[in-house]
């Protein structure tokens, strides 16, 4: 295992685009090469060492035994872990938008809050958000057919709006509440919300949404199918969204 620690020293409010911070990119690079990688700060290019202090311990044989630790409040560092295929990233504080987007494998753990579009169009791997998550987690790009199609996202806090928008595979678990329209336009995969949800499942055509708390403002275009037991708990099952043709989405709401 090779552990690469990035100590954030940047505290400006202009976001840094850091899609190069992935185990894939760091795997075969020396400390000095990592320090020389280009990041984007507004309309200028900066070197990674201008934003982070880098320290490296151990060695690796491939991508999977690379671990990147980001220390400090990275709430203005975007696109960390974009497209990564393996290895691990641990963000000790918050992280800015699009972390783990298009991720294919490996694991990202965010100890703080994650901003919008985390796990956008993710295909595989795992993201764990220990704080709250922003909007459009696991969603698709503007106009794209699909959002997240594989992998797993766990949010230990609350999730924002449009959680799992256009999702067609994989799994999302929210330990607390989800804001409006979780599972919007989803066609596959599974979303579990352990707290409350507002208007879940709008325009969904497939996949499962399970709400263990209360559903606020349930959409009128879902049809009640009856009770069902999941993991020894009683749920009311609905199919929808019947504002869509050929809709086969399942919405399970914990029975009172």
């Amino acid at each position, binding site marked *: 295992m090779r552990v690469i620690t990035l100590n954030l020293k940047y505290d400006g409010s202009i976001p840094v685009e850091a899609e190069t911070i992935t185990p894939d990119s760091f795997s075969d690079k020396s400390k000095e090469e990592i320090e020389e990688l280009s990041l984007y700060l507004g309309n200028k290019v900066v070197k990674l060492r201008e934003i982070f202090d880098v320290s490296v311990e151990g060695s690796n044989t491939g991508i999977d035994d690379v671990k990147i630790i980001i220390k400090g409040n990275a709430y203005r560092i975007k696109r960390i872990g974009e497209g990564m295929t393996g290895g691990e990233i641990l963000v000790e504080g918050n992280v800015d938008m699009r972390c783990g987007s298009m991720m294919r494998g490996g694991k990202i753990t965010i100890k703080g809050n994650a901003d919008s579009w985390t796990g956008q169009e993710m295909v595989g791997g795992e993201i764990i958000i220990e704080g709250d998550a922003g909007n459009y987690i696991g969603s*698709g*790009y*503007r*106009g*794209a*057919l699909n959002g997240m199609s594989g992998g797993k996202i766990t949010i230990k806090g609350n999730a924002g709006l449009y959680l799992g928008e256009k999702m067609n595979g994989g799994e999302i678990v929210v330990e607390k509440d989800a804001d409006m329209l979780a599972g919007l336009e989803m066609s596959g995969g599974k979303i579990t919300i352990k707290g409350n949800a507002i208007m879940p499942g709008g325009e969904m055509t497939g996949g499962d949404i399970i709400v263990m708390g209360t559903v606020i403002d349930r959409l009128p275009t879902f049809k009640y199918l009856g009770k069902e037991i999941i993991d020894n708990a009683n749920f009311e099952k609905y199919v929808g969204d019947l504002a869509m*043709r050929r809709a086969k989405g399942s919405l399970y709401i914990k029975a009172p």
Partner: protein
Amino acid sequence: MNELIIKNGIVFDPLNNIKDEKKDICIRDGKIVDDVKNPKILDVNGLLVFPGGVDGHSHIAGAKVNSGRLIRPEDGRRSLKPKTSITMPSSGYSVKNVFSEGYDYSIMGYTTVVEPAMPPLSAIHTHEELRDIPMLDKLSLTLFGFNWFVMGYVSRGEIDKLAAYVAWMLKRTRGYGIKIVNPGGGENWKWGKNVDSLDDQVIHFGVTPREILNDLMKVNEILDLPHPIHVHTNKLGQPGNYNITVDTMKLASGFETQRGREPLHITHVMFSSYGGENWKTFDSKADEIAREVNSNKFITVDVGQLMFGDTTTMTADGYLEFNLQKLTGFKWSNSDTELETGGGVTPVIYSPTVPVNVIQWAIGLEAALLINDPYQVWLTTDHPNGAPLTRYPEIISLLMSKEKREKEILQVNNAVNKRAILPSLDREYEWNEIAIITRAAQANSYQLRDKGHLGIGADADVTIFDIKPNEIDPSKDYDKVEKAFSAAKYTIKGGEIVVKDGQIVKVVSGKTYWTNAEFDEYYELIEDDLKDWFANYYTVNLDNYGVNDVYLTNPCMIRTNPTIGSRVRLA
């Protein structure tokens, strides 16, 4: 004086009967000349030399194209390229921004492109975009197929007024020729309906597609317009439509033009060569279409080749797009334009595992391979409807190599063996024929006398491909062919090297051609009608309607002689 000599190229210049000849090409001040004094020398040592490419049908500008870009940010983010010291940022795969359109064409060696569907009411928009497309000479065809004035004059038999109206409209929109999309049917779509045969009535207007086509063909001749009527047939995209396509082609049979040329062009014929009664029984009728073309010198067609992948469809045929969207469930835009035309946009994914798509793919190639005279069949993808323009090199390699086709056939759904005839076709295109279907035929059909050839006086638009025609066998080395056509060694536009080794090295802005077919007192003939209809039914004032030269880069007016036809085939 700006001089250049291209030495030792292997030149194919079909319009001047030059084929596979080692020949020097001299250029002075943007024109091909017979000799030069102090030229810059470009020794291309046995490489393939063609005239600059001409695409006679490609949706690159105007409301529909922009609507495609607007609804498809997910397409826009594909092929993003940053600016360089000379170029602007590029975006888009099937719906490209204007810069990318110019650069991508230029990199493939094209120098002239026709936007084939300009709605008159938004002609300013078409020209604003054309103006912003770098690298290319441009022309656009004005839509007439279900225009209220046209249908009114046709129904009343007022052919002189119809001619006056077309002349007025071409001038007012800076259009080059007559485009007809789903004649009559487009008006019915404005009530959610369509036409099914050439003799169906247009709701309320009391005319038929046959009458519209016949009269516009006559007017085209009367006005001496450089290009034949350019027709997107009725029922396009529907199974079993080959009948109506053959019927449409027959309208031109024996049509007397004083100019000894074809009066009718059928565009993206792939979409109009369908057999079967529904999508389940769908099959190829490219053979029937090719039979008609081969026996009918009065028509030309272009292929509208489909290639597998994701693209965006767009046409003035709104009914077609609506039905396509019903099949796919994808997003859909529609844009009916008052008194004039309409249109629609929807994305599509053509899959090599879907039988219908595979047969569509085969039909285009079959049409190209079965039509004997390459001057009668231009290579197009109907960009972006069949495929984005960047797929041309692949299609060229398919036409030149049976082996490559066989390899592809193995990869696609087996329907290609049962309901298409492509596997049985042996023909392989030669270099000269490729030069015809990508250059000479189009320049000829548009009577762009300075384009599509390398004779003395032609515009110095030249493409040099990084391939030695005498050293490779395109039927075997198809990968090399595809690679060479993807990125020109040199593209020379108006005498300047604009592309080198597949990279843009100079950004230029081209000309815009339009046709002036005015005749004495043409305006007086229609003035009352225009004033009346604009006042009552349009929402834009007659005074504020149309385009002027402010919107054109290097405007280039083609003056016709509406009584005497004089322009003939160059070769």
